[in-house]
């Protein structure tokens, strides 16, 4: 049984648990499926330059700020920001709101992972073959025209509707998986950090084991060298494109899970004399190294997939030629294919033209870059089918994705849970188990709308509008709030009390000038880019004339309104709460009889 401190606040069993939780929160699905993609499209190794610059001037300072804040004030995000200044209480509320919204859709992504996981126990894997159509004369049409992996993802998993306005029905298999995922989250967060602290040992460390296994296996596959060369070949000219710098800054920012309030919650359970400066640098560096480490197996496997596709293309052409000209088998090999083609073109060009051979270009196969859910559920699953022992690899892969997502969910839920525990609204007599149960149940019920036919379109909307803009705003106000409202001198004294060292020049410069400036630039650039083109999405429509290409559609007005609402809702709390306190102060100053309660006068408030 845990022995709480005198103030009744739970604490971590040991420092390692705390560091693991922060790392687990920061290291998530984005490290596996967003960073390698960005590396690939932004000039390979050259992308690391803006990435590391953003890490040093934006990532580490903001991370240190949040960890120091939580440790010093020993409260969740809402309480902590209220303690900094009542006018900044809105920042905490905004963080809380973002954590709630992100938890909703993030767990639905884990639902998809779980669905694939429980389907990996079959032989053959269900996404490797097309089912037959109704009268058993041929393969299912939608599957035949696209691929079996696409069919399994869009039809058997999502049962996607062709339009975001067409909601479709609840997919019962997804509802079951969603319930299971929320049950798992409840199981692990049932008593706050007491239970997540135990679970994090597994969920934070297991992905590294699987990544290593994939690394070793991936490097042994044919085509791995091509994939890795493609990923890391630096193209320094790309650095002239401002888009690259913007992507690097946003990637660092979202990858470290800043501005969610979860990090503040985690560090608030620390003893006050913990060295938060070292922790911040450790977590940020481990996160970046994990991104790099994950991109190696990902790109080995993608290279393997590309070369297999290329060989398939060649083999199909070879068979057509052999059949047409009745040449002996194995007379044309992949190696002398080009010579043969040249020879036959000169002698029988009409016959060759009649065969309609596809041009096979390895570069084209490597260029098919995907990020996000498409990488995991379409590209990677296709590669796994080609590996020997595909069931085992599929199970390992999806368990790894699930662990990565689950440890991030812990941070999200902690960001929701800890402030609620401290709010006076929630009475002390409610047991923690009940509160976490209520949170999980409410989130599950709301998240049911993501299991509709149009659910994945909505998740893309949430991801683009909630998981991006509000975080930039919150982080900007965080830095400004600590540097200029709370004042760096005061904060410096607090940090010195905790770590025993004065804040050195690097922290002073970045907190005062560099980070806020960078955040402002990123925010403005982000908004400018969003406004430039009308928001559109790609829909999976079997009746589209260019099927299996996805159909480009524009969001209708009411959906756009929801997008704006989602982005604005958390941000609106910042001025709202400030205004509320301003009005309260003015009313109080008008009424001299009332005694102003000095609620949070001292910094040492527990």
């Amino acid at each position, binding site marked *: 049984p845990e022995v709480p401190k005198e103030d009744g606040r739970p604490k971590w069993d040991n420092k390692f648990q705390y560091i693991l939780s922060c790392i687990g929160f920061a290291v998530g699905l984005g490290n596996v499926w967003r960073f390698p993609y960005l590396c690939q499209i932004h000039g390979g190794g050259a992308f690391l330059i803006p990435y590391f610059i953003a890490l040093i001037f934006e990532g580490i300072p903001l991370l240190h700020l949040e960890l120091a804040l939580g440790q010093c004030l020993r409260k969740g995000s809402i309480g902590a920001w209220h303690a900094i200044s009542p006018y900044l209480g809105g920042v905490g509320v905004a963080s809380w709101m973002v954590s709630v919204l992100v938890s909703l859709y993030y767990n639905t992504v884990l639902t998809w992972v779980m669905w694939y996981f429980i389907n990996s126990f079959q032989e053959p894997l269900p996404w490797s073959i097309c089912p037959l159509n109704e009268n058993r004369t041929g393969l299912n049409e939608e599957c035949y025209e696209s691929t079996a992996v696409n069919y399994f993802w869009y039809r058997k998993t999502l049962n996607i509707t062709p339009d975001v306005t067409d909601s479709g029905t609840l997919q019962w298999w997804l509802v079951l998986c969603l319930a299971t995922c929320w049950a798992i989250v409840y*199981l692990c967060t*049932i008593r706050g950090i007491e239970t997540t602290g135990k679970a994090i040992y597994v969920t934070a460390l297991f992905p590294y084991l699987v990544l290593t296994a994939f690394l070793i296996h991936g490097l042994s596959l044919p085509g791995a060298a091509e994939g890795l060369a493609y990923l890391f070949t630096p193209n320094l000219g790309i650095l002239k494109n401002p888009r690259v710098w913007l992507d690097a800054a946003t990637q660092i920012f979202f990858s470290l899970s800043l501005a969610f309030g979860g990090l503040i919650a985690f560090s608030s359970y620390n003893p006050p004399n913990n060295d938060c400066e070292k922790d911040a640098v450790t977590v940020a560096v481990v996160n970046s190294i994990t991104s790099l480490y994950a991109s190696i197996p990902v790109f080995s496997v993608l290279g393997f997939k590309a070369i297999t596709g290329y060989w398939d293309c060649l083999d199909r052409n070879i068979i057509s030629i052999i059949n047409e000209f009745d040449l002996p088998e194995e007379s044309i090999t992949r190696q002398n294919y080009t010579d043969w083609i040249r020879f036959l073109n000169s002698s029988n060009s009409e016959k060759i033209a009649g065969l309609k051979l596809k041009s096979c270009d390895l570069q084209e196969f490597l260029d098919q870059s995907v990020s996000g859910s498409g990488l995991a559920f379409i590209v990677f699953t296709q590669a796994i089918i080609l590996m020997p022992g595909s069931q085992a690899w599929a199970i390992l892969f999806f368990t790894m994705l699930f662990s990565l997502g689950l440890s991030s969910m812990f941070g999200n839920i902690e960001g929701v849970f800890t402030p609620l525990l401290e709010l006076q609204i929630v009475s002390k007599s409610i047991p923690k188990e009940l509160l976490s149960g209520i949170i999980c149940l409410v989130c599950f019920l709301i998240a049911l709308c993501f299991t509709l036919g149009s659910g994945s379109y909505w998740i893309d909307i949430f991801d683009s509008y909630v998981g991006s803009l509000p975080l930039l705003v919150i982080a900007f106000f965080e830095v400004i709030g600590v540097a200029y409202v709370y004042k760096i001198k005061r904060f410096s004294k607090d940090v010195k009390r905790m770590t025993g060292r004065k804040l050195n020049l690097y922290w002073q410069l970045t907190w005062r000038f560099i980070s806020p400036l960078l955040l402002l630039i990123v925010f403005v650039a982000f908004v400018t880019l969003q406004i430039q083109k009308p928001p559109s999405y790609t829909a999976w429509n079997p009746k589209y004339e260019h099927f299996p290409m996805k159909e480009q559609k524009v969001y209708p007005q009411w959906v756009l309104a929801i997008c704006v609402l989602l982005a604005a809702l958390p941000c609106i709390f910042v001025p709202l709460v400030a205004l509320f306190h301003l009005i309260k102060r003015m009313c109080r100053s008008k009424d001299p009889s009332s005694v102003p309660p000095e609620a949070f006068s001292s910094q040492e408030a527990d």
Partner: protein
Amino acid sequence: MLRVLLLTFSVVPIACAELCKPDAQNAFKVRLSIKTALGDNAYAWDANEEYLFKAMMAFAMRRYSSKTTTQISNVLLCNVTDRVSFWFVVTDSSKNMTTVPGSEVEAAIRMNRNRINSAFLLSDKTLQFLKISTTLAPPVEPSTPVWLIVFGVVLSLIVAGIVFLIVSGIQQRKRKNKESTERENLEEKGEVTITIENGIPCETLDLKAGHVNGVFAADDERFSSL
């Protein structure tokens, strides 16, 4: 006489050659991919293999139509290429210079496809009869989908874990409550020490169960104060 015989003998193969040619009526093209199927164990396609093929076709026709009139000589092969592909027809020995209708041959082959494939150690994909499409095998589907079973296992484990944690939490809370109330009670009566005589607190002795012994009670000064 001899010349007539010679003429008939030379006409028959020529006539037979007329029956078997690419795209002839009731002729089928066959394509074998032996190296693809067998790799290093591939056999070479020679006259013996052709003989086996003719025998298999005759066998198929006999099994299908149940009449024992089809002979190996009724099956004619032509245009054998290095690919290993060729055309064949099945002639009808009862009627002169005619071929068995393609539909019958097709049906016969479909019925015996397995046997024909096994004779050559090939499969539907590597021994192709170009005009005869293969029927697709229905997928094997277990009675309960496998994923439901896995799902059931996972869910039951999770529910067991949740129930265990909730119950242990409630027990912990009860224990803590009991301890805290006991501690509270002790703190309230801090000054009054509960003296116990033979396991019974003295207050109850005074009030209920005990009787004061009159012999000793009279002399109060001999008692020391507590």
